[in-house]
């Protein structure tokens, strides 16, 4: 149990708690040898600049050579065929592409794949599959916390991360006391989940699902 005094307030942690749509990037930033900075001849920019990057996805190692313009989302979906993370807007506005990077949620569309050297990436598939579902996935099914299903992987990845953020004592915009441990209230969940849009409007059911899982874990 976290005590208020335990709170390890980092700038990064505070940002994470305040807006789910802010993408934070981690890891080293390899500078591709081919991309000499300042070499701006148009013909050069037409030829794809590639770089290698290595990361793990759902526990599996991947060594990729990628066009440096490739987002983490497109690397997952188009290169690795890990299609659980969805492309709803490609601009960090909808949250459908949410994945966990080293345990923290990000919008994978706002992050270039080559920025994730050495990272451990978990997608919805890594949380659970139909034959062994994560408790959050099962709770979404039970409470009908989805309809068309397109935002659902992002909602579930966010939900799992939100409970960890609250457990870690990271406050949000609706936390009354920034130095107290945030409470597991519906308002806290709604605030923290607001970067994940569900146009089918399953919000009421999603909050029920998260609340049930949170209660079970508490």
């Amino acid at each position, binding site marked *: 149990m976290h005590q208020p005094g335990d709170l390890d307030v980092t700038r990064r942690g505070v940002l994470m708690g305040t807006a789910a749509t802010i993408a934070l990037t981690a890891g080293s930033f390899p500078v591709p040898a081919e991309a000499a900075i300042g070499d701006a001849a148009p013909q050069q920019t*037409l030829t*794809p600049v590639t770089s290698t990057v290595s990361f793990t996805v759902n526990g599996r190692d991947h060594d990729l050579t990628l*066009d440096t313009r*490739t987002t983490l989302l*497109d690397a997952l*979906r*188009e290169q690795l*065929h890990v*299609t*659980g*993370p*969805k*492309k*709803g*807007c*490609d*601009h960090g*506005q*909808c949250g*459908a592409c949410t994945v966990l990077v080293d345990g923290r949620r990000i919008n994978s569309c706002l992050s270039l794949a080559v920025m994730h050297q050495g990272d451990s990436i978990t*997608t*919805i*598939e890594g*949380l*659970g*599959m*139909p034959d062994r*579902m994560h408790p959050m*996935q*099962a709770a*979404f*099914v*039970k409470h*009908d916390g*989805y*309809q*068309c*299903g*397109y935002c*659902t*992987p992002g909602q*579930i990845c966010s939900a799992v991360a939100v409970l960890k953020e609250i457990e870690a004592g990271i406050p949000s915009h609706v936390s009354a006391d920034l130095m107290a441990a945030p409470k597991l209230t*519906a308002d806290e969940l*709604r*605030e923290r*989940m*607001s*970067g*994940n*849009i*569900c*146009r*089918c*409007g*399953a*919000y*009421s*059911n*999603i*909050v029920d699902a998260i609340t049930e899982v949170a209660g079970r874990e508490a």
Partner: protein
Amino acid sequence: MKFDTPATTNPIDQLKVIGKPTSRIDGPLKTTGTAPYAYERHDVVPDQVYGYVVGAGIAKGRIASLSVAEAKAVPGVLAVVTHETAGKLGKGKRNAAPLLGGPEIAHYHQAVALVVAESFEQARAAANLVRVEYRKTDGAFDLARAKDAMGDSAEHKKEDSVVGDFAAAFAAAPVKLDETYSTPDETHAMMEPHASIAAWQGDRLTVWTSNQMIDWAATDLAETLKMPKEKVRVISPFVGGGFGGKLFLRADTLLAALGARAAGRPVKVALPRPMMANNTTHRPATIQRVRIGATADGRITAIAHESWSGNLPDGKPETATDQTRLLYAGANRLSGTRLAHLDLPEGNAMRAPGEAPGLMVLEIAMDEMAERLKIDPVEFRILNDTQVDPEKPERPFSQRQLVQCLRTGAERFGWSKRSAEPARMREGRWLVGIGMAAAFRNNLLTKSAARVRLDKRGVVTVETDMTDIGTGSYTIIAQTAAEMMGVGLDRVVVRLGDSSFPASAGSGGQWGANNSTAGVYAACVKLREAVAQKLGFNSADAQFADGQVGSGNRRVPLAQAAGDGELTAEDGIEYGDLDKKAQQSTFGAHFVEVGVDAATAEIRVRRMLAVCAAGRILNPLSARSQVIGAMTMGVGAALMEELAVDTRGGFFVNHDLASYEVPVHADIPHQEVIFLDETDPMSSPMKAKGVGELGLCGVGAAIANAVYNATGVRVRDYPVTLDKLIDRMPPIG
């Protein structure tokens, strides 16, 4: 199966599976990211490449010159499709503007080119190098100006619906209202962008896409490409939301097909999010005038509803006055739509077209009228209930429980605690208000077919081109087959969204659930006959239960009927004139509590309740989700959603999810839904009706009325945003 007499008792009435809250059978796929959506079909065809759409940079005019040389020079680019290279294209009758523009440009972001490349990144970069010079012409983009230009011309009133003498009755009414309201353009903003993969095998075309209406898509794709429909196959098993935005063939599908032909490779295309609002269809803005006259004791004697909207030349009006023809009594009536020519992108159906904006207006007017009459708004509506079509009194409603919805809702929500006088309830910084509105949406009947198969393991497989756009079709179709064949849900497989399956009603107009399950019912009746015959039962006597078929003392496993080969049956539902003899509609009542910040006028929705009477509820779990989802969309319509029109440039400015605001988690409280017990034997053997749009109908007005009750500020111009309240708020005290 022809359905032309009211349903009697049938196997669905057992309610062993139907009517039970049932988790979606596609839930494990959707919650694990393994349900395959169109753009993700790496599995269906090898060597896919990427198409990226270029949208027109003007709203109206011509392409003066088009240069694709720079784009073609980009490494990895395989082809560029434009009107110059696409060959002669037709146009499906459901599209107002051509899906590939040029040389004429009909609207902003109309597609003018597709760049095909080995990678998405290459295609996107090359698309930016397609050089298009335009010659702009003037267009009409301002609905209010277009309305003024139309004036009071009789030309626009030729098709008005008129009963009695509205003008005289309105003039004579002791209490009356004459107000004008407006609703903005809205965009569907479904989470999955329009996306397609197209592959040619010789002269045969297959598209994996995201579409609500498989048969329409196949028909219009063939029409546009001028090829036989038999050579087109459309596959769309999972649809990431549609709300009417995916009813029709759109540019992603056509351009993927053209790109694949040009590149000689399968091509995948998704519309970039910022292109969706202007490239595709939207719900048109309306200006609506409502006039109501009543006796001093609150009986409506005269009611008129007129609506102005705009569209491209082949487009239709927003039918915002339809519900007013059927919802309330009144001997003297007038309603009609007036269509202006606008050069904005095509206006077309968005969830509950007509009723959604129509009830947003009518139900504010009813609230205002109740206040003028000093009658409770719930009682005012009850007083003016009608059990017959007010335009054709010989025509009853098949079922009409509006009064029960209103009374149940009022009691459950605590309506009696509401202050009739506005701006009287205060909780700390919040002014609190309660509002309500009636909900109404017609039940539409349309034919729908299915094929069912029984294999030797006793597994029943249903195949129909019906789609599941989040509506729960997979599950209610499985429930229907399980109930009919007497098996558990684990013995049923449902395959949807493929034009090689029998044509269904598709998903739209809240007609999907009743019609598609009725089609499956018809096919199952045929399969039951085949099974009975095979096993030596009289089909009229045979009972199907617990995986067995029986009659008298004899019981035989269902699977045995397919022991020496699969049994297949195909049939569909077709309708007679039951819906002409009686009006089939769905009813509801919305109740909403809001808090409005006394200082800033910030509006927060605090409580929501919907009571619905919509025939048999096939799956209360997914039906409830349909209703709360619609209520959520209603919060958007009431409080935030508005496509801002640039009336000089002729386009929607806020064309992405950052600037077009839709409700998020923080905007939506816990929502309650009550379904009244109802079966409608006139609707189909399922005795069900639609519910997916009913939940949106009226909810916006309930919110607007709650804001009025909280603040005393009446806003008649949606969305109700704080800037429209702030200078008229009650003094802070």
